[in-house]
């Protein structure tokens, strides 16, 4: 076996609203680029084969598993990770809702679930419980049994829509 000559590729993209350039190997996934090259470790690897959703990010507003996207594929596109949710005003209402209602336990699947929730609520501001469960069925959580996550999504929808009161 001969050693392959490593040729890195330049990628110009937008991550969390900021222009970013980086070099990556052509076979590296977006997940690897985010975590190992750009130091954005908020996005998690759970399975590296598209089955757990821990690596969920938004690619041009679309929910994707970043382990199934190549780093070179984001050339000229826009990526949102968990690090891009909060801004100078503070936590995003979705983050606030998960924090207040206790919608997490170990917190490892949480970044992916927050991103998936954002994708859901961007499309559907008032999802039913069944819709929330169906939408989140690509995000595995081993700790919570999902109930508190569903309540957190409902609370987040409420926060985003009006100043309504939610029972945690």
């Amino acid at each position, binding site marked *: *076996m001969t*050693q392959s000559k*490593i040729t890195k590729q330049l990628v110009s993209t937008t991550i969390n609203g900021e222009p970013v350039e980086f070099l990556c*190997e052509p*076979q590296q996934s977006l997940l690897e680029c985010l*975590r190992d090259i750009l*130091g954005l*470790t*908020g*996005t*998690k*690897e*759970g*399975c*590296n*084969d598209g*089955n*757990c959703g*821990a690596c969920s990010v938004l690619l041009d507003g679309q929910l994707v598993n970043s382990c199934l996207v190549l780093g070179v594929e984001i050339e000229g596109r826009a990526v949102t*990770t*968990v*690090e891009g*949710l*909060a801004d100078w005003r503070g*936590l995003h209402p979705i*983050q606030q809702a*998960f*924090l*207040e*209602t*206790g919608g*997490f*336990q*170990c*917190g*490892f*699947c*949480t*970044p992916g679930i*927050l991103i998936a929730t954002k994708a859901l609520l961007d499309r559907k501001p008032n999802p039913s*419980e069944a819709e*929330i*469960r*169906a939408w*989140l*069925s*690509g*995000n*595995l*959580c*081993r*700790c*919570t*049994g*999902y*109930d*508190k*996550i*569903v309540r957190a999504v409902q609370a987040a929808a409420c926060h985003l829509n009006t100043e309504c009161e939610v029972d*945690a």
Partner: protein
Amino acid sequence: MTTPEQKPFTVVGERLPRYDGADKVTGKAIFGPDVALPGMCYGFILRSPHAHARIRSIDTSRAETLPGVYAVVTAADLPPAESTDHRYARDNTFASDKVLYVGHAVAAVAARTPTIAEQAARLIEVEYEVLPAVTNVLEAMRDDAPILHAEMRTHSLAGRGDRPSNIASHFQQLKGDPAQGFAEADVIVEREFHTSTVHQGYIESHASVAAWSDDGTFTIYTTTQGSFAVRDHVVWLLGLPMSKVRVIPTEVGGAFGGKNTSYLDVPAALLARKARRPVKITMPRPDVFLATGPSSGAVFRVKMGATRDGRITAAQAELFYAAGAYPGSPVGSGANVMFGPYVIPNGQIDGYDVVTNGPRVSSYRAPGATQANFAAETVIDELAEKLGLDPIEFRIRNHAREGDARLDGGTHGSIGGIETLEAARACAHYNAPLGDPRPGMRRGRGVAHGYWGNWGARSSCTLSVNGDGTLNLVTSSVDLSGTRTTLAMQAAEVLELPPERIKPSVGDTDNTGYADVSAGSRTTYATGIAAIQAAKDVIAQMKARAAALWDVPVESVVYARGVFASGADLRCTFAELAEQVTGAGGSVSSIANVDVPEWGAGFSTQIADVEVDPETGKVTLLRYTVVQDVGKAVHPTMVEGQMQGGATQGIGWALYEGYVYNEAGHMLNANFLDYKIPTALDVPPIETVIVEVPYPRHPFGVRGVGEPPIVPPPAAIANAIYRAVGVRPDHLPMTPAHLLEKMGVIGNR
């Protein structure tokens, strides 16, 4: 309900925001795979492709010469084994003479990039002599089975066996006269059950980053339930003084017992020393299934008898647990809890710990209990049915109380099992109609009751008072799901201060006192006792400072609601006193080390409503309720989360999860697509009923919470399925194929 300390609570019982919450919802929390050190390189582990093979030779020369490779290690880099247990641990780190399961580590490489490390590992030439493999526990017990360990003899009541066997041990629990007990029974049920190997399924894979210094010390960042357990494992295998290894635990992305054991830390340390630079190893998901410590697949033969008036007269069981490659299955704890909730006048349990060609099993949430409960509680349900008794009523009639003897020889302490069953009988779910099934479907409701002993053991907690009256709480107990918060709450309760004044954190092995692993549902309980002790000591020390400041006898100083006072005139707040301690005895801090010898058992009763499609065998959960005695819920939101999460894992065992092996001993479903764990769509909202029967040995009445809820789900669902379709499932997972087979829709596979 009163608690051992009669004061009303001000902090305990509140649903506070978690101290670690902000970092967990912003992606800032540093988990094991997130750690990076300057100059770090990457490790990769080469694993066995065979379930059972002799290693004839390992040639690492081609890997070593690949550009970018810094180190290659094998078992030859480990000090020689000193005992049988040491050899098992050493061989499970790197195989020496034989590989015993697919995924068994053989060698490791450190290289400049992960890609080079993996390429180099593929250049290592291992010559194997492939041997027949055995993954099924009953087959492994046969005389003609392939033998995993030539030197292994069965330890049993009769002593040490005289020929090689895969049966590592056989034990027996005996009480009364089982034959007489069965003779007195009006009804006897006898059944056999099979369960599959299951994995903890934490979403965060294992990861370890090890650094070596030329002074001979190691620093290891790792995702673990016990920093000291990792340290002790590393020094044991590398032959080092304990002080030379510093283990810094990261945030932990799910563990459930599976991170009590160290897998990557010794390889990372060996590579770091040889490469002379920090090495990071992360475990790919397939390897997590193949090469970490799942829970035993098991077989049970159960027989129980009862009289017409609903009294159990005898119980008998044989338990066969697959330990994987080395002895140490949880068959003992399975036996201890199997009939544990009930008064069994005559009983016998025989347990067998059997090695098989699979990964060495490890702890998984109430180790061994869920399997055994499935068998016992299905038989209990059948007895109740045959006697025409409500299943909860039958359990209450036979339930143990404080002081009753168990089959394992122990005696029940303060327990709330009957209160839990009574709460289940009274809850909304149990009294609601089942509802009409959809056309062609059948519905049923099942109940099961689970018992788990919990744990106490060693913990340490340090509490330091800052000059502004805030406090830092540091513990060596790794926080798996919110214990920083529950420990700070208990300290705040004692200190009578707002909990936001306390900043809790988890320390490392260099800077905190010893703690056993965060396991056995013990952290809020046992480390909580340490936090309470430290808080009481802080108050005592602060009183002494006040006495010195005011020049009054220390006995005259009283403390209440954050204020120190002496006589009519002398008063100052906790914060004011903290500011003035210099010159009055100096800063205040306290370290409490506890070794908690007793703990309160937990009981969980669960109710499942199912709808079964008799044509496809698909089971849909319609409604699910967890009722549990938690002693005192320090943080009810987190307690509910434990109950819901534990039950959902048990639902996974019940309906979906299990290792599938082929004839050659290869696991066929080592990924999250084919090893399916429950998704948000698979479970209904899990309802919770918190029962609080205070445990008297904890100042606030706390019992362990995390483990009991995983115990009864398979039995509750099996009993519901029986009510729906009239057949009793006896295999886990209860797949559509298994149900169709039981219903006679399809033939035996």
